[in-house]
């Protein structure tokens, strides 16, 4: 637990120190990110060896205190967010196109990471509300770094996020009114399937869906993510939307009575399929590169939502592995994609997809990163996206009644292939290549490729990873 606590507090202290000293030192952030990553990895090792752990804050007895809970998945998410943050920090410090180097990006991104870690570790309904607000404010502040053109989307994002928080908070109030506790594990032992509980859980769910941009509450995401600076887009798409998803998962898999979960599961799963298809369709249609990547986030979150819904519907804890592999694979791939897209866009001086004509010649590494990351989004073997899809497909095929859900995956796969190769095919167009405005930054291109390679490299540790996620002893 000590390691997890270090992973939580280190970014916060870093942010405070940076602010106090008015420092914009990327190097410091990179170093502390690295230390955070080490601490997170240590906590992962700890939880694997010693099992789940709890920490009562202030040593107060359970119903009173806020409890930190370190589960294997929590530790994994700590490592994951530290990894992405480190990568983005290196990008922001190293790329010549990085617009965030001499801004308050550094303390803000550290605060963002700290809030996210607080969210992973918490298990208290109200504490989650506060972490959500932290996350939301940090995210909006980061979007606003892009300058005036981002203020419109940022304000819209902020207002919807605030509204969503209050929807969630009303649900929390109802849950507290009904059961008198706020800790999710304690709630899990008490909840019954009555009207108040149902409404409370649905309120929290709706609020969180809005925050996570899950279909049909996704409309704010593409503009906000597309207008942010590149490093921020990567953080937002890879990490921030996963926070509410985590709460949603714990809410239903731990806190809700089985009956309610079974009832709500299909609704979420269908929303997931709708996200896959409609988000994918928008990604196919949009003329803007970053919007395409952002819409793809909407679509890919559909997979996670589908996994969550089916997990609830069939009461299959094995689908946890599918859900979190999706999150992991998507986070890595999306970080790669946004960095690549940002670099391409900055070098070409155009935000249009059509400007990518001929980029396989002019900027092969960045384009390759985009394509490789896209391969994981499509779910091509043996990438991380494929592993997740495989785990999701298996239980679908086990019973004949589950087969219709396969159609959702099939459509999702084809449509993601559509929007990924829409870009890739264009990049091979040699008829009329668009020459780069600025000299491409090779370091940043290779950096963008890195997470994409990691997500494919998951194949090398796939079996232990899946066993670990599904709780099978190694």
């Amino acid at each position, binding site marked *: 637990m000590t390691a997890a606590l270090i992973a939580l507090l280190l970014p916060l202290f870093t942010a405070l120190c940076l602010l106090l000293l008015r420092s914009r030192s990327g190097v410091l952030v990179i170093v502390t990110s690295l230390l955070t990553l080490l601490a997170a990895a240590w906590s992962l090792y700890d939880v694997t060896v010693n099992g789940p752990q709890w920490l009562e804050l202030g040593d107060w007895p359970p119903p009173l205190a806020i409890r930190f809970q370190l589960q294997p998945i929590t530790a994994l998410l700590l490592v994951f967010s530290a990894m992405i943050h480190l990568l983005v920090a290196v990008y922001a410090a190293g790329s010549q196109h990085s617009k965030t180097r001499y801004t308050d990006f550094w303390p803000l991104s550290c605060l963002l990471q700290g809030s996210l870690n607080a969210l992973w570790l918490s298990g208290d309904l109200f504490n989650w509300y506060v972490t959500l607000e932290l996350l939301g404010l940090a995210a909006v502040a980061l979007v606003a770094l892009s300058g005036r*053109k981002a203020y*419109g989307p940022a304000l819209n994002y902020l*207002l919807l996020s*605030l509204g969503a928080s*209050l929807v969630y*908070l*009303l649900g929390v109030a*109802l849950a507290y*009114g009904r059961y008198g506790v706020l800790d999710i594990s304690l709630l899990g032992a008490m909840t019954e399937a009555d009207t108040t509980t149902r409404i409370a859980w649905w309120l929290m769910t709706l609020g969180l869906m809005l925050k996570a941009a899950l279909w049909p509450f996704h409309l704010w995401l593409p503009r906000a993510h597309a207008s942010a600076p590149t490093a921020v887009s990567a953080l937002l798409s890879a990490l921030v939307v996963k926070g509410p998803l985590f709460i949603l998962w714990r809410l239903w898999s731990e806190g809700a009575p089985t009956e309610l979960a079974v009832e709500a599961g299909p609704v979420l799963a269908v929303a997931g399929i709708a996200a896959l298809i409609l988000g994918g369709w928008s990604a196919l249609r949009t003329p803007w590169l970053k919007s395409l990547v952002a819409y793809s986030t909407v679509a890919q979150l559909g997979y996670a939502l589908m996994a969550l819904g089916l997990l609830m519907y069939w009461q299959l804890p094995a689908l946890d592995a599918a859900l979190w592999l999706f999150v992991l694979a998507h986070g890595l791939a999306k970080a790669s994609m946004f960095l690549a897209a940002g670099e391409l866009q900055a070098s070409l001086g155009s935000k249009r997809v059509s400007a990518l004509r001929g980029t396989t010649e002019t900027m092969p590494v960045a384009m390759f990163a985009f394509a490789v990351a896209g391969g994981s989004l499509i779910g091509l073997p043996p990438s991380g996206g494929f592993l997740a899809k495989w785990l999701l497909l298996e239980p679908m095929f086990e019973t004949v009644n589950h087969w219709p859900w396969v159609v959702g995956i099939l459509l999702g796969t084809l449509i993601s292939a559509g929007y990924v190769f829409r870009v890739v095919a264009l990049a091979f167009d040699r008829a009329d290549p668009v020459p780069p405005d600025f000299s491409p930054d090779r370091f940043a291109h290779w950096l963008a490729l890195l997470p994409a390679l990691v997500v494919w490299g998951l194949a090398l540790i796939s079996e232990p990873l899946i066993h670990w996620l599904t709780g099978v002893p190694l």
Partner: protein
Amino acid sequence: MTQVLFYLILGVCLWALGLYGLLRLKESIRRIISVNIMGSGVFMVMVALAARSEDPDPVMHALVVTGLVVAISATAFALRLSVADVQEDDQ
């Protein structure tokens, strides 16, 4: 109908009203006000719930204090953002 229930219902109504305003209005300052009305609704539900027991529930009161701070912080930023010079996106 007790006092608690009365305020619970009132809180819920305020919340729904705020939500309606947030969804329907376009002017950003008015939307920010709507969000605040929504928040007041939730706080009313929470304070009413706290008033159920003989001694008011200190946990709920503390949560509302925290909630108020969060609300004012977000409102301050939202207001600043809403009056910042918005440049139309070239998209």
